[in-house]
């Protein structure tokens, strides 16, 4: 791996290799940092800062309960020919707290639309989505999106992007900066704090986007084909790192993808969708041990069976043609 550069100013940043993976040593540091921040604030009492919530040990998990309920959601779009197109048809789905759920399907099956409805960015034509029992009427900081297009603020540096959410939530500058620097280190971008997005590679941008979303502690991560625009190598690295972060934190994740491997590798549950109209075909529980390590999993016959079975199911539906 090429040596990482420190400081900014060089424009060949995009050629720098992807950041290193995560380390336990680093996470320990993050805890320390939070404790320190709270000490200065509240004297000697050590108060668990909110940012440590996402790395709470798995053992403290309460029994799974529904966090997101999607109830008979349909979405109709008008096509350019002024025809109604049924993008989602009567979708019902319950997502349990702390679960990693992938929505898998061919392009045009409405899987991203479903994610946008949960995000509150799009209102369904009929039906409703709920978070913790409350109807979703718009976007909110309890649901943090990560988009394929990164959608970083290009006029802000890496640090400025990550700090944006906490600052908006009213966290004091010094505290927001300390937490953001820690998150930037966690996603492997230490040394890039003062870079602008245009100076980063695609993989690095997506790391920033993930850190930016984690920074305001959403309860649910909504990931819309987050690694779809990345090359295979970078994609694998980011999948591994996402899993490492998630396995410590167990935040609920709704993950949209069209890659079967990706869905099986990451998820507890894979929701298979079919196209025109977008419907749930099948929900498959992925019963593979965690923590998952890529090199072990790829050799695991159970993993291989899941991938092959899911691919076969998609092939069958392709041959059958669209249901009309």
């Amino acid at each position: 791996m090429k040596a990482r550069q420190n400081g900014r100013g060089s424009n060949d940043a995009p050629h720098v290799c992807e950041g290193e993976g995560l380390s336990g040593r680093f996470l320990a540091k993050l805890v320390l940092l939070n404790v320190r921040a709270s000490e200065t604030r509240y004297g000697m009492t050590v108060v668990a800062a909110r940012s440590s919530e996402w790395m709470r040990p798995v053992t403290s998990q309460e029994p799974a309960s529904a966090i997101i309920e999607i109830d008979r959601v349909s979405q109709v779009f008008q096509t350019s020919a002024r025809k109604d197109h049924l993008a989602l048809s009567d979708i019902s789905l319950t997502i349990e707290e702390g679960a990693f759920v992938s929505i898998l399907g061919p392009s045009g099956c409405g899987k991203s639309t479903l994610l946008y409805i949960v995000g509150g960015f799009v209102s369904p034509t009929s039906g409703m989505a709920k978070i913790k029992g409350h109807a979703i009427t718009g976007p909110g900081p309890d649901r943090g999106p990560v988009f394929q297009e990164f959608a970083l603020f290009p006029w802000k540096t890496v640090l400025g992007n990550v700090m944006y959410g906490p600052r908006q939530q009213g966290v004091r500058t010094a505290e927001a900066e300390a937490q953001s620097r820690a998150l930037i280190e966690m996603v492997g971008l230490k040394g890039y704090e003062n870079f602008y997005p245009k100076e980063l590679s695609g993989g690095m941008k997506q790391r920033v986007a993930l850190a930016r979303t984690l920074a305001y502690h959403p309860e649910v991560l909504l990931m819309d084909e987050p690694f779809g625009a990345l090359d295979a190598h970078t994609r694998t690295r980011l999948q591994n790192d996402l899993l490492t972060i998630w396995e410590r934190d167990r935040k609920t994740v709704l993950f949209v993808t069209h890659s079967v491997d990706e869905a099986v590798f990451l998820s507890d549950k894979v929701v298979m969708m079919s196209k025109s109209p977008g419907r749930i075909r099948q929900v498959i529980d992925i019963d593979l041990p965690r923590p998952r390590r890529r090199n072990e999993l790829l050799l695991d016959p159970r993993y291989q069976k899941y991938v092959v079975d899911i691919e076969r199911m998609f092939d069958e539906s392709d041959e059958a043609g669209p249901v009309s």
Partner: protein
Amino acid sequence: MMTPAALIKRAAPVLACIGLLAVWQVASVALKNDSFPTVIEAVRAIPDILGDKESLLNILASLRRMAIGFGVAVLVSIPLGLLMGRSRGVAAFFNPLLMVIYPVPKAALMPIIMLWLGVGDVTKTLVIFLGVSLPVIYHSFEGAKAVEEKMLWSGAAMGLSPAQRLVRIVLPAALPEILTGCRTGLVLALITMITSEMIARQSGAGNILFNALDMGQYDTVFAMIIIVGAMGIFLDALFERARARLVRWSEPQFDMPLSFS
């Protein structure tokens, strides 16, 4: 220590000016026409204009009108353009209006505005305002329209209200495009400033120019043209400096050089 190549690049705008003046000098010597003084004659008339208190006051009055017209236009046009770019209703209302006004030369409206508001500062400033507004509105509109939806969604998820999104996401994201409009607006401000003074002759740089023309003082006419040109170059370079600083985050690494900045 600069390499010869860097030195040439640095001096290129100055060389371009010297080249233009040289062509003028050769042409005027060759044509031997009374109404086409040489560069030397024109340049010699410059200190007479700038040394004269009344001329100087005239030029300053012009610049003041231009600054007010430009400033007010920018303050009104940017919010309007941004709203148009983000709201279908606002765009549907203003776009047809602007399409009617855009092709009309603003100086052509002057006689009517003069009837209403007289030949004073208000009329001229209003014409400058009109001249500057349209490109700034147009570019703000285009800039706001092009802002990535997902960037706004990311802001909404962080808890930004629609108004906050307009100010804190759409405005900065559209800034490079807005400033392109402002740069065009600045040049148009200078043009409308002179033309407004050509029509409503009372004071100003344009007044000096056209009075000299009436009296056949061609060296003064050309001296004024040089002064106005120099003002344009100076203001543009100043603006370009500010612009480059504001949108450093969006500049491509190898941008084409602009003017004298």
